[in-house]
């Protein structure tokens, strides 16, 4: 496993809820990342964020890690949940509350 892949695996393993995003929770740098943060805040979730713009290796590596071409990406308890579209669908259906409610 490359260095970036093992660092990503560590981040995913050591944080119950972690969002890989562009920018920070306070200053998202992309509309999709902003939407993902808004959803998590709305649910009152405790979450960590990783700003991929600060780390080109993670930015490239996270796409390979999950076989997913876009950022943001949400992981809960080590499982890839999806990007902002899936987060929105799960938010609207109540599934995300359930998933996070059990963990947060």
């Amino acid at each position: 496993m490359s260095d970036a892949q093992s660092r990503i695996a560590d981040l995913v393993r050591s944080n119950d809820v972690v969002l890989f995003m562009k920018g920070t929770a306070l200053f998202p740098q992309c509309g999709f990342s902003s939407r993902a943060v808004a959803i998590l805040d709305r649910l009152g979730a405790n979450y960590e964020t990783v700003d991929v713009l600060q780390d080109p290796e993670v930015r490239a590596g996270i796409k390979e890690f999950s076989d997913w071409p876009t950022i943001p990406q949400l992981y809960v308890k080590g499982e890839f949940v999806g990007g902002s579209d899936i987060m929105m669908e799960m938010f609207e259906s109540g599934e995300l509350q359930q998933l996070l409610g059990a963990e947060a």
Partner: protein
Amino acid sequence: MPMPASEIERLIKASIPDAEVVIRDLAGDGDHYAARVVSRSFEGMSRIKQHQAVYAALGGRVGGELHALQLETAVPQSEINQ
């Protein structure tokens, strides 16, 4: 680089032939799209797998040439009700 909506639809249908594809150009700039893709082939697949199937159809363009594609996938309603 802008990509016409018709090209996105063509690529998706080339790989998911029964797909019903509806595309909206969100910003009118040929670069920010929303797509809804409905296909029987999605039945039994997780949302992640459904989206991955569409990304695969677009052959690595999403996140690159195609910066912003808001995606919604679904199985046809009649299939769910059966």
